[in-house]
């Protein structure tokens, strides 16, 4: 389809030194405004920080493997779990969704690029610099006169612990300013995704023919636009408190600690939906293709996604059941939180119905998505338990909560994005990932995940609070903590297998061809990797599965779609 004879930058540089060629190659990545290259930059950046934050998690688990361990000092432990949370949410989660969003949204809607290519590059580099700023705190945290120190106030950073009276030095400033900078990048990416999906669709691609991944990127981007604002506002207020004598959260001067909680969680809770919705999008692409069936109940899936986005904006104070709200507010937020279960339940049922009556092929992407379905079911049910406010008074800030949100963010988000890596790697690189290594990766990660996070539920029930750098030997938590830590190490091995698979298959992988999975969305009609500007001629579609229509002219979708 595409014209491969266009002059490509670098192709004319015959006879120059290797150093110059390398520099030019680097230069093309730095100046690029191409959505596919930016998408790859986002994804590689996210994977790098996945390894960094994963290493922090390993240090945490080694520390907690035995009671009264002195391997990490309390200061270092507090820095590690703060950085682990902040990194995983902002540098891994947000960059992964916008990485895949960047790469796939234009391809899936038959567009040649994002709506605003330069804004796209700006957004990526803002996010990237935000991440560097956050990690620079390890060197510069206490200013120029001493050793550095990373932020150590937890990723929810409750005031007044973040005020200068309790957090002197600059590490909290790095945290606040890095989040502001990354916030700008995220806003740019969200605006761009919305503009692209609404104005760049090819002919015939009505809103209700968009692939579900695009729909979920749209919903997640809309939520992002709403919730990054209060986060940025809160960080600005915090900086004003710290440097300009403000008293927003300064309780010693009459400020309010609970105002910070409201600002943070009206961002923080929808934020987890911002992360999980694109993961739903991935599952909604992978499950039909590997079940060999159209998605069941497409309009219901779209409606449920939009419903989740709306309801997610009214549940934030379920993080605050223990702060002494009135009983009426507690009841309200219990109800609104339980209501999230309805649209998410609809989604799970539709995925299972999609698999029902199919011919399910358990290639690695489908293995990850199947495990996602199971783990997301569990995460939803423990979420219901936490929504029961009185039970939350017991479970809040215990390891039960840690287990619950790792079930959503690892068991669901990360599993879906691993599926995405196996599914779209052939499109991005032109080579297949090794299925053998993929299966090793999946089973090790699956077993390690369940060892770690199933066990954590029990630790929480047995009264172990989160954020503690060590615990007493007589509490009955010792064996369980050892199991959690061993499971963590197994997951680390699995991730290293993935990294090896990505690197090795890039050089030696089997050639993928245009459409290795016999899939149905537009990105599989292009060569792998797709050429610059994707489509030589603009595609025209008549249904949600344009490639199905081409492959089955006798039985096209557009005759039957709801």
């Amino acid at each position, binding site marked *: 389809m595409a014209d491969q004879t266009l002059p490509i930058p670098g192709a004319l540089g015959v006879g120059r030194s290797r150093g110059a060629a390398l520099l030019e190659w680097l230069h093309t990545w730095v100046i690029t405004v191409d959505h596919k290259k930016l998408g790859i930059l986002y994804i590689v950046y996210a994977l790098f920080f996945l390894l960094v934050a994963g290493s922090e998690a390993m240090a945490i688990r080694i520390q907690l493997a035995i009671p009264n361990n002195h391997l990490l000092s*309390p200061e270092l432990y507090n820095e590690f779990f703060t950085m682990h949370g902040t990194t995983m949410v902002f540098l891994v989660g947000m960059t992964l969704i916008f990485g895949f969003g960047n790469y796939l949204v234009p391809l899936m809607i038959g567009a040649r690029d994002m709506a605003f290519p330069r804004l796209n590059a700006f957004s990526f580099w803002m996010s990237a610099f935000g991440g560097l700023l956050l990690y620079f705190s390890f060197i510069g945290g206490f200013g120029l006169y001493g050793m550095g120190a990373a932020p150590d106030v937890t990723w929810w950073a409750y005031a007044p612990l973040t005020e200068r009276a309790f957090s002197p030095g600059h590490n909290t400033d790095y945290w606040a300013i890095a989040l502001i900078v990354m916030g700008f990048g995220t806003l740019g990416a969200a605006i761009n995704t919305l503009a692209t999906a609404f104005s760049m669709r090819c002919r015939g691609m009505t809103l209700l023919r968009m692939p579900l991944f695009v729909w979920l990127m749209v919903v997640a981007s809309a939520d992002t636009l709403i919730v990054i604002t209060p986060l940025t506002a809160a960080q600005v207020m915090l900086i004003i408190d710290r440097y300009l004598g403000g008293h927003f959260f300064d309780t010693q001067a009459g400020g309010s600690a609970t105002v910070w909680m409201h600002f943070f969680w009206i961002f923080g809770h929808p934020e987890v939906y911002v992360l999980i919705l694109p993961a739903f999008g991935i599952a909604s692409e992978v499950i039909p293709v590997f079940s060999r069936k159209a998605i069941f109940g497409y309009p219901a899936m779209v409606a449920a996604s939009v419903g989740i986005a709306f309801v997610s904006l009214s549940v934030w104070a379920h993080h605050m059941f223990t702060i002494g709200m009135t009983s009426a507010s507690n009841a309200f937020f219990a109800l609104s939180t339980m209501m999230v279960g309805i649209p998410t339940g609809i989604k799970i049922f539709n995925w299972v119905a999609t698999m029902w009556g199919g*011919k399910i092929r358990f290639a690695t992407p489908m293995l990850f998505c199947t495990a996602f379905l199971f783990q997301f079911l569990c995460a939803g049910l423990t979420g219901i338990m936490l929504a029961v406010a009185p039970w939350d008074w017991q479970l809040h800030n*215990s390891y039960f909560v840690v287990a619950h949100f790792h079930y959503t963010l690892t068991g669901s988000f990360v599993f879906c994005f691993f599926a995405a890596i196996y599914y779209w790697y052939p499109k991005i690189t032109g080579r297949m990932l090794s299925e053998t290594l993929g299966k090793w990766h999946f089973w090790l990660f699956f077993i390690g995940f369940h060892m770690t996070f199933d066990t954590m539920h029990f630790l929480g029930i047995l009264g172990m609070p989160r954020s503690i750098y060590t615990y007493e030997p*007589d509490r009955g938590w010792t064996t369980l903590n050892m199991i959690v830590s061993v499971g963590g190490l197994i997951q680390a091995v699995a991730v290293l297998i993935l990294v090896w698979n990505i690197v090795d298959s890039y050089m030696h992988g089997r050639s993928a061809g245009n459409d290795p999975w016999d899939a149905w969305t537009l990105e599989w009609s292009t060569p792998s990797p797709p050429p610059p500007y994707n489509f030589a001629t603009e595609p025209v579609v008549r249904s949600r599965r344009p490639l199905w229509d081409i492959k089955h002219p006798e039985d096209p979708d557009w005759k039957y779609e709801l």
Partner: protein
Amino acid sequence: MKVRRISSLSYLPAFCLALACMGAITCFAQGPQATPSILAPASTPAHEIYSLSKFVLVITGAIFVIVAGLLAFVIIRFHERKTDAGHEPAQVYGSTHVELAWTVIPVLIVVVLFLTTARIIFAIQDAPEPPSALDVTVVGHQFWWEFRYPRLGIVTANELHIPVSTTAAPQPAYLELLSADVDHSFWVPQLGGKTDLIPNHPNKMWIDPQSPGLYLGQCAQFCGVEHAKMLLRVYVDTPRLFDAWVKNQQQPAVDNPAVAAGRQVFESEACANCHTIRGTSARGLFGPDLTHLMSRATIASGAADNTPANLRSWIEDPNTFKPGSLMPAMQLSDQQVDELVSYLSTLR
């Protein structure tokens, strides 16, 4: 066949949970435990939460079994077979009736869950304080607990004493929760849910333990470097023991002339800036009240046993037990430390 393994594993959490529940019912019968389990409630709020949690567990468990069972069935029944290669399965695009069914049923479940939850929220949170209740003010500090009994004139630290509350003579403890610095959270799982201690935002909670003994807990909201060592001990005493304890705590500190040198050190060195010993000139309010230090089993908010040897290392360098504690190393001579420990050891 690999796919089957998912289905058998999928019952693992449910199985473990059921096992844990049974274990809880059988071996966590009553009274205080070394493991502060929420499955061993020993006070009305904890009991009500426990009953509610069993109800919720039954509903969520039923949903789990049905949906995970469906998923397992689909995986086993509809995986690709070698025999049926070549053609695609029948394409089904959806069904309004089915969608309606799996929307309405969850709505009904939510209604039931919400009404049950709301009832317990109001029952625990809005329970009126009976006149027989004991008032205690809890003040969270980095990284220790201060307990004030306003009607009894007692101030103590880290180890809360309350009387047992029986049906015949109910005497719940109503705690007013304050903070001197940052957010903390009061959590003794066997006695009730946690409530945060937030500066400028007084909170209330109540507990009425029914069996005497020692209940363990700890701070449940990250509060800084030594959050992990902000441990909490609640001693539930029989009425006779509690009265004896109150009488002793209301006395000023023992004044034993044999350890006057140690008292002299305490009053003249920096100790007095932060600690109070009633009956002496030490009136500091930043650290724990030491008037009856030896009536407590632990020092440093539970980080170490209260023995003369531990007291000695604590005074010489608090970082031994609690690196990051706000108490400075006192830089006293060996002789001064000896005198000081002898003096403190008399404060019964």
